[in-house]
């Protein structure tokens, strides 16, 4: 059966079905191309609702659930650790589990960045952001601080009374909160699937807004549970994809390869296969965000849903020349379970992880926290990360299947983090608040930048249309292409760019 599909004449083979792969597949299949998706993980059952978690730890059981099966090996500030990163591997990729926050970056993020250059302008991207917001049914309200044309967003659902009160308090102290941009359609009996698979045509992600509409055209097919293990090249052409399905290896000769395995996965396979790396930059300039979580107590107690993810504000996006990021509702309550979960995650990555019983001892601070937090809202500040060549995906031939990274928190980042915390403290001066993280918390769900695009083949891996400088039939459309990480969630940009590249490919083929 597998070979039947491999031997067909596909216009494009897309590796990975997340935000980037799913979206470009839809564009191409809608444009009449014959598209084959190759997905490492399973399609899964449509009614599944599992959250992406780490207490299922056997690789098979993780793979079955659409989680990346193996732990990420990370050397952070020279300390080695292994943990399950919040990364998906199934139809929809990580986006099947995401919180569906689709926010636009700002003009200066692309046009005037002190640290890295974008080969295309914000104005070039704007129409593709419009397109992505339509495709993903984004609802929300415009950012009152933005000077850009207002995006056409769907009306958000009625605001929870406690959020409404909190937004009022924020405005009263001179802040500019707005309704977070969200790709959730809030259909009847919506489960609000933040962090878990959505069983309805409700949360719009790489699966529901990408792969499924692509399949509906009749022009696309998904080969799931199929892991790409090697790419072969002959000069400027990718000649062969080797994939492994149920322990059997298959080969196919692709016309065009579109890689979308995620910033870690795509860099991993290119390093492994020694492809597209004449610049030596494959895997480098890895960026995350720093999550700055804090609890905020409304001045007036209004009962409501503490777990809603409805508010965003950009008052701290940057201050003068210092770049921070958005502050938004975390989408979790300050409840015992949530706090315990976060404490344990922190402990897993800390030196304390070897202390016996430490995971159980975490119950005590969690219990204290929940008493103290009470009616607090948990907010998170997303601090922009800059790309540094020494922060990178590495390939270890001794562990050819495992994702591996090296990352050092730059002194500049630590200084900005301190300034960000200070700015948050100042912005919410009148409110009681408490930071929930002591150490800098990297957001391993937001990796990007490992195959950055640019005009020069010496300083970038991809050209401005996201084609590999070194090859004529290889494109990359996941978050790897991004030279900067912005102060917002990367998903909307991944989708908008995939749409842009998709239309470019269709146009190129016509002429």
């Amino acid at each position, binding site marked *: 059966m597998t070979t039947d599909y491999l031997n067909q004449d596909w216009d494009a083979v897309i590796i990975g079905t997340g935000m980037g792969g799913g979206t470009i597949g839809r564009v191409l299949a809608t444009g009449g191309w014959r598209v084959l998706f190759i997905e490492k993980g399973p399609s899964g*059952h449509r*009614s*599944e609702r*599992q*959250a992406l978690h780490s207490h299922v730890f056997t690789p098979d059981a993780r793979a079955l*659930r659409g989680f990346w099966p193996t732990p990420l090996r990370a050397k952070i500030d020279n300390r080695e650790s292994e943990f399950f990163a919040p990364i998906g591997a199934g139809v929809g990729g990580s986006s099947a589990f995401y919180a569906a926050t689709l926010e636009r970056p700002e003009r200066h993020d692309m046009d005037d960045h002190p640290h890295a250059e974008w080969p295309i302008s914000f104005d070039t991207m704007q129409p593709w952001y419009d397109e992505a917001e339509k495709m993903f049914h984004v609802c929300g309200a415009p950012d009152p601080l933005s000077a850009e044309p207002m995006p056409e967003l769907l009306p958000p659902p009625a605001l929870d009374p406690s959020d409404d009160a909190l937004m009022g308090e924020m405005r009263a102290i001179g802040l500019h909160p707005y309704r977070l941009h969200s790709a959730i359609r809030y259909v009847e009996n919506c489960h609000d699937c933040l962090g878990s698979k959505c069983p309805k045509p409700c949360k719009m992600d790489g699966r529901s807004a990408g792969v499924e509409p692509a399949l509906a055209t009749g022009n696309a097919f998904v080969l799931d549970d199929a892991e790409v293990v090697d790419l072969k090249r002959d000069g400027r052409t990718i000649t062969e994809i080797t994939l492994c399905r149920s322990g059997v290896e298959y080969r196919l000769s692709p016309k065009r390869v579109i890689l979308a395995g995620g910033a870690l996965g795509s860099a991993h396979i290119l390093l492994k296969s020694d492809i597209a790396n004449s610049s030596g930059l494959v895997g480098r300039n890895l960026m995350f965000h720093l999550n700055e979580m804090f609890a905020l107590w409304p001045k007036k107690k209004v009962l409501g849903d503490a777990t809603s993810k409805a508010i965003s504000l950009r008052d701290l996006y940057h201050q003068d020349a210092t770049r921070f990021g958005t502050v938004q509702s975390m989408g979790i309550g300050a409840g*015992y379970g949530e706090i315990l979960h976060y404490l344990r995650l922190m402990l897993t990555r800390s030196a304390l992880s070897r202390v016996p019983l430490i995971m159980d001892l975490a119950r*005590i601070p969690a*219990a204290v926290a929940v008493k103290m937090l009470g009616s607090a809202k948990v907010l998170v500040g997303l601090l922009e990360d800059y790309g540094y060549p020494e922060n990178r995906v590495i390939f270890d031939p001794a562990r050819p299947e495992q994702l591996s990274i090296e990352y050092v928190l730059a002194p500049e980042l630590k200084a900005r983090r301190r300034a960000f915390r200070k700015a948050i403290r100042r912005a919410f001066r009148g409110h009681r608040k408490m930071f929930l993280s002591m150490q800098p918390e990297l957001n391993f769900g937001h990796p990007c930048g490992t195959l950055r695009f640019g005009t020069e083949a010496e300083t970038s891996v991809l050209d401005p249309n996201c084609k590999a400088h070194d090859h004529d039939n290889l494109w990359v459309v996941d978050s790897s292409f991004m030279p900067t990480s912005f102060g917002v969630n990367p998903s909307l940009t991944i989708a908008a760019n995939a749409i842009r590249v998709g239309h470019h490919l269709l146009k190129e083929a016509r002429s």
Partner: protein
Amino acid sequence: MTADHIIRNGAAIVTGAGSGLGRALAHKLANQGMHVALLGRREPSLIETARATPELLHPFVCDVADASAVTTTVAQITTDLGAPRLLINNAAIYPRRDILDIPTDAFMDSIAINLGGVVNATQAVLPHMIKDGIGRILNVATFADMSPLPMSSEYSVSKGAARIFTRALIADIGDRFPDIVVGDWMPGMLATQMGIEDGLAPDAAAGWGAALALMHDPALTGTTFEMDREILQGSGLKRKLKALLTLSRPQKPRIITPI
């Protein structure tokens, strides 16, 4: 439609419905207006059970130890009554014999009914339940595995294994399909063929079992009820200590209102 409506409007399956507790459970569900497929090996007993409410009680002769027969029967139930939404795994045998007297192969035959029957029926209904992820599976269980009585090896081993199956099933589907609610229920000592003479009337126990089977709170997954009361995990002291550490109130067992 809420999950509760979907379950009540779907078909129920009660295994071992030809006598005792199974018959009483089927009657209680029919009293609630549900269509119930009665599974059992002996047709006359099933027909006898169905006599109470023939338009809602439907006999299906089927040996739960026979996996392919169960699959065929569930397919037939789906055609006749609609997709199964509620499964009560009740069928069991209790051969009382000394380990020295159990004929060759007979031990595994008992396992095939008491454990195999639960596995077979569960596997047959799950594909229907996962279509939209909504269902309820209640396994009739016992403490027989905790300290096996003499002359009860087949029963205690197979029923103990069935309890492990409940937990293993939850490990597989609990996080993926939280609206398929799975749990164990211990009816207590009953005055049935399998039970004791001065036990509880099966009809009284079935009032709790049927009520529990119709409760569809995802939080019930993994719970064990004994008669009308939830059995909480861990010792009372452990629970009090945890409550103390987490500055919360100790958990209280849920109580079933019988129907």
